């Protein structure tokens, strides 16, 4: 329906004649349009602000979520579509295909850094030293009966200490983002899947029947031990302050800003810290991206400058302003490679 409308509109405009199209050309926008992930939003707005200070170019950043961002971004190549979309996960093959189908030929991929996902609780609360398997045991809806028997039964754990005597004797109560959130996706894909694979039979299932494995690994409890708490990480942090025995799942930058109230659980022996996320020792971390339309960089040169500002040493180098607000930046080599891709406007292809 929408497509039909749009075609009708295009016809109407072309019928209206030359005068109209001239007017459209002269009102071409000068600002940069960015949409996408709410996780990348704080970093993107920081760069937008610095970029505006340096060049005077207005930048508009919308927080639409990763999925919503890709949808808007791949909607077409025209100048009424966004120039850049931020994403807290890699662009899906289907999304890139949609881009190509809608005339967005070259999409430049830039990986900006990493975001750790923290399982945290109140500083005065008990210490949690978890393994991925224990995270899975605490929050999966159904668990295998034993390591070798993958008959799934409802998760019966009510207390952390029932999972492992070394864990605190506290009721399991986890506050985390809802399924629409990129943070939730990453938590489920990295922590829950990783934990599920610690069961040999589930690991075998992952090879033989992927769909059945994903259903077992991705389904979070619905019996009140896991509580969806909205996209707002601040709300989760506030909840933890008011509920000393609960744990919360949120992004590392929120832990970094609230270390006076909240501490992060160690996962597989690694603390959620800047160093451990950079080295990859902390297991639950994901890459953050943004995607640029090569054609728009030709049209509005400021877009390329913005992308290069994001990758500059002043922003993402050691002691840069993005590090100050909690980004774990990509390595110098990776940044150099992405800078080249931005300068040449080279689109990427999915290898998978």
């Amino acid at each position, binding site marked *: 329906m929408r497509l039909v409308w749009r075609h009708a509109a295009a016809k109407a405009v072309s019928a209206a004649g030359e005068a109209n199209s001239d007017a459209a050309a002269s009102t071409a926008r000068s*600002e940069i349009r960015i949409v996408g992930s709410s996780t990348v939003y704080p970093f993107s707005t920081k760069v937008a602000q610095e970029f505006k200070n*340096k060049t005077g170019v207005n930048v508009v950043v919308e927080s639409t979520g990763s999925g919503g961002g890709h949808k808007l971004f791949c909607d077409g190549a025209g100048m009424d579509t966004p120039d850049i979309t931020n994403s807290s996960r890699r662009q899906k093959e289907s999304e890139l295909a949609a881009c190509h189908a809608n005339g967005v030929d070259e999409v430049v991929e830039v990986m900006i850094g990493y975001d750790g996902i923290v399982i945290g609780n109140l500083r005065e609360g008990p210490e949690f030293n978890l393994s991925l398997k224990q995270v899975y045991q605490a929050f999966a809806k159904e668990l295998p009966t034993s390591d070798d028997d993958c008959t799934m039964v409802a998760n019966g754990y009510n207390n952390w200490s029932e999972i492992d005597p070394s864990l605190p004797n506290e009721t399991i109560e986890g506050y985390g983002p809802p399924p629409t959130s990129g943070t939730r996706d990453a938590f489920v894909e990295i922590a829950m899947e990783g934990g599920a694979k610690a069961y040999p039979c589930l690991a075998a299932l992952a090879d033989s029947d992927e769909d059945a494995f994903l259903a077992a690994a991705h389904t979070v409890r619905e019996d009140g031990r896991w509580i969806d708490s909205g996209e707002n990480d601040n709300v989760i942090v506030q909840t933890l302050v008011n509920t000393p025995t609960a744990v919360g799942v949120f992004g590392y930058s929120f832990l970094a800003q609230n270390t006076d109230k909240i501490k992060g659980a160690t996962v597989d022996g690694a603390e959620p810290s800047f160093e451990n996320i950079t080295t990859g020792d902390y297991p639950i971390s994901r890459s953050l991206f943004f995607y640029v339309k090569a054609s728009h960089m030709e049209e509005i040169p400021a877009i390329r400058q913005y992308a290069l500002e994001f990758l500059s040493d*002043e922003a993402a180098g050691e002691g840069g302003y993005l590090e100050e607000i909690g980004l774990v930046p990509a390595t110098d080599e990776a940044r150099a490679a992405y800078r080249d891709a931005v300068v040449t406007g080279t689109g990427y292809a999915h290898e998978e």
Partner: protein
Amino acid sequence: MSSGSPHTTARAVAMLKKRRRANSVFHALGVAAIAFAIAALVWLMSSIVGTGISAFTQNVITFEVVLDEEELDPSGERDPDALRLANYRAVVQDALYERFDVGDDRQRRQEAFGLVSTSGATDIIRQQVFTDPSLVGTTMTVTAPVSDDLDQYLKGNLTTDIDESLRRVSDNQIAWAQELKASGEIKSQFNWTLFTAPDSRDPELAGVAGAIVGSLLTMLVTFVLAFPLGVGAAVYLEEYAPKNRMTDFVEININNLAAVPSIVFGLLGLAVFLNFFGMPRSAPLVGGIVLAFMTFPTIMIATRAALKAVPSGIYDGALSLGASHTQAVFHHKLPNAAPGILTGSIIGMARALGETAPLLMIGMVAFVTEIPSSITEPASALPVQIFLWSDSAEVAWEERTSAAILILLAFMIVINGAAIWLRSKLEKRW
């Protein structure tokens, strides 16, 4: 009649007692309801004011920087555009390392640099050098906001009775800050930035000016569209339209429109104005149109009620003196209905002012680095700003969010105050 007054029988006395009890129970319930409402309001306001009041002051630090030519303008050409891109962070860092004599210790260097708003200080210098390139090579005195964490500490919003490594401010920073406060190099002043600056990623630099202008532009569009449409439709339906099934149907639909959840209007705006008509995203123009759809039924219903409330004698009197139907309506009924129409419109507008949901769909939930200057430029709105700030990680956003809520409330009070004033000024009693 044989046993005298009916109130003397046992049954009558019991009934009287029951009636009086019902009376006092209702009275007590009424008082309790009001008390509950007042308590909720006081609790809400004291919590918002308590958190937000400290955001109206901001600590600033004054220090000297050497605008080193080597660092800022190695070519020596003094080209303003090149100077704008220069590395002012290094200049600020050098000045602070020098001031606190931190040597090469990385930790102490970070602490010294962390005293000041890094984006704030660099930008103040950047814009001054950009406008006056001859400053390069001289020493200038900069007054910049302190960092958000230090500001929170100085306002007493950060706990310091925990281990230093977990704190947002270190022992060194506290010692330096106390010293600077004693010498007057750090002082607290009224936070003008909050009212004059556009949105910022850094709480100490963020302001609501962009959002306020965005809200005003949006409301302007809403009013220009919804007011004439709403009043016109109401006058027609009330005074001209024949009373038949068709007009009943229209009336029911308009009344239903007033009850449609606002997000639906946002979806309508996305589908029709952005995708079909190709209007610009994030623009107050589209926001205003969408909110006008929401406000129009409210204005229409209020106008119809106000027209109905005008005594029929006014209209009949006009007719008997020879006025036509249209003259009687426009010269006599409508002016007499004005107070009700204005009150309804202003309440409808106030509701639209507080909306976020429809704006989400048309891209006004956005970070915009500039204060908008026309209805087609990208803009945000005041409630959106509050929503976005509340979602940010830094502790300092908490007070800024509350301050923004106070500013929005002040707006609402002004608007509602205007409604009450207009009503009492224009109101006629018959």
